[in-house]
């Protein structure tokens, strides 16, 4: 209660002092303004990056294990050792599905690209995915129209396809895509389904510009020996490690890896990406912190400078206040509040400047300046004020009353 009163008094003094020195206060806070702009932009960008990543990563599915020839994160020397690994085959995928007890569904996946045409419309280098009937469940896709590939179609390498929403919109803007026969590479495929809109992956790939065809068709039409991924959806996400062990055992047997030799395949999962991203994100944040710290440091020096001037100008006032009973703490509070006010004002200006600038970031990253970011920026401004105001305020607080009164 008493302290609140003291702070209020300090606020009144600070506002009065700043009002009579608007221009000077404004100019010296420029450094803090710039500092806060960088803090905000940096935080917004990192936030946007994070969110884009989280959104993308959720498409991969936390409960899916990807059996592939190579690990997602292969070092250069590892690459030399592993590049001669044999391909994974469709037969192996079928065996995995038959033998695994922890797998809920096993999908096969291969990627390529081909030109797609319908009548006089065409799209170049469309992303073509070879999938099996269970891939829908593994990938967690939903359809806006039609259905997914059937087991029979995969078995018989039927010329059918499921297309992404962008392709559908582009080729069949006014009519239903179902039943249309589009040319994918060399063969004509009948559209049996349309995927729901998915957006971009964080790498920038447009997921809505894809054509899914039976994997069997993929191997005859596009790539004879594709690098097949066996995607295994696990029943229980708490048993991912057990599932990994089981799959490793099955695959070593299928691929006849002698005991004691290392695996000639890799089992990848979402978590690896997350871990890797967090590492990168962490160092990014560190660099950001350093840069913003630097500009805030410069700003803080500006505030410190102006506070020294303010103390020097008001030495006599400090003397009078001490003569009528102000304690060191009162004077310290008074000048700290003034420094915080300057910095907070600069923080607000910084936010006002940064806000339109975040629209630019938004253009690339779908990032918005969030309330927590804004609050954090203001907190940083206030802390900068306290830190840089402390020495001048301390000097004021320690002034000897007689000397202060005699000044001028």
């Amino acid at each position: 209660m008493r302290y609140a009163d003291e702070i209020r008094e300090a606020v009144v003094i600070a506002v009065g002092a700043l009002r009579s020195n608007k221009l000077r206060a404004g100019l010296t806070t420029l450094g803090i303004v710039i500092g806060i702009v960088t803090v905000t932009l940096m935080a917004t960008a990192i936030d946007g990056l994070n969110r884009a990543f989280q959104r993308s990563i959720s498409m991969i599915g936390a409960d899916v294990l990807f059996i592939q020839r190579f690990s997602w994160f292969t070092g250069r020397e590892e690459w030399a050792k592993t590049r001669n690994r044999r391909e994974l085959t469709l037969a192996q995928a079928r065996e995995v599905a038959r033998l695994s007890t922890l797998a809920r569904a096993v999908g096969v996946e291969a990627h390529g690209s081909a030109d797609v045409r319908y009548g006089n419309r065409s799209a170049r280098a469309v992303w073509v995915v070879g999938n099996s009937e269970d891939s829908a469940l593994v990938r967690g896709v939903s359809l806006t129209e039609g259905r997914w590939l059937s087991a029979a179609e995969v078995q018989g390498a039927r010329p059918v396809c499921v297309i992404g929403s962008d392709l559908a919109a582009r080729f069949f803007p006014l009519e239903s895509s179902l039943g249309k026969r589009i040319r994918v590479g060399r063969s004509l495929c009948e559209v049996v389904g349309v995927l729901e809109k998915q957006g971009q992956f964080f790498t920038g790939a447009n997921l809505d510009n894809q054509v899914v065809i039976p994997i069997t068709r993929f191997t005859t039409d596009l790539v004879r020996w594709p690098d097949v991924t066996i995607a295994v959806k696990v029943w229980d996400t708490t048993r991912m490690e057990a599932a990994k062990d089981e799959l490793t055992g099955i695959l070593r047997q299928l691929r006849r890896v002698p005991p004691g030799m290392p695996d000639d395949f890799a089992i990848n999962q979402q978590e690896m990406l997350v871990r890797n991203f967090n590492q990168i994100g962490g160092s990014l944040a560190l660099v950001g912190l350093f840069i913003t710290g630097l500009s805030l440091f410069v700003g803080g020096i500006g505030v410190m400078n102006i506070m020294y001037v303010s103390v020097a100008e008001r030495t006599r006032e400090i003397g009078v206040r001490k003569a009528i009973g102000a304690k060191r703490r009162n004077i310290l509070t008074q000048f700290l509040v003034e420094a915080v006010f300057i910095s907070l004002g600069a923080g607000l200006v910084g936010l006002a400047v940064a806000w339109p600038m975040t629209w630019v970031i938004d253009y690339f990253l779908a990032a918005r300046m969030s309330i927590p970011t804004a609050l954090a920026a203001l907190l940083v401004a206030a802390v900068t004020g306290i830190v840089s105001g402390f020495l001048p305020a301390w000097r004021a607080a320690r002034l000897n009353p007689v000397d202060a009164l005699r000044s001028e």
Partner: protein
Amino acid sequence: MSLIRITGLSRHYVMGTEVIHALRGVSVAIERGEYIAIMGPSGSGKSTLMNLLGCLDTPSQGVYELNGLNVADMDDNQLAEIRNREIGFVFQSFNLMARSDALHNVELPLVYAGVPPAERRERALEALRQVALADRVHHRPNELSGGQRQRVAVARALVNRPSIILADEPTGNLDSRTGTEILALFDQLSRNGNTIIVVTHEEDVAQHARRILRIRDGLIAADEVNQPHHRAEAPPRLPPVLTPPPIIS
């Protein structure tokens, strides 16, 4: 017990190789309710003594007891409290807060004393009434005359009901008429039982006091009892509250 007892008080300033002896061992006792003038030529050490009495400065040597407490034993915070509660300062150059109105200036000692806002306001208004400025509470110093400013300063000195009022040349910046007004105010305060110490080098001003300390070269040269007299030809124009009540016979 004396309100103030100083013994062998001295204060010197070291300036490079030179040592300036502003006070060279002053001893004096001052009782509650006294009205004292300190006189002496310029540079004799009046302000130095005043600053020591007001706990704004610490002596080089000697003992200062205020209300029986040795000031040398106190730390910074305790001294601030003493200045806040026991002492009311009136300066030659008023020393008001330029950006605050009269009311807030007078409230300030109470702010530092931690008095809650409502009570603070009431007491500040009361003090302003005592100096006949009830109609100027929301004026800033630059909207007041010199005399009015000094009255605000006196109200500020009074508001926390201090044991002593210290005034260093309170009329120094005022013309003689407004000066008289302030002195009349002091007379009134003295009659109400306040202890007042005024530094001056005007004999006229000193004549209001009942005791005059004459200082020369940092020493007390004379300690005289004075019979205050008001010259009939210049009666102070007193605001109503300060006029002594008419004697009804």
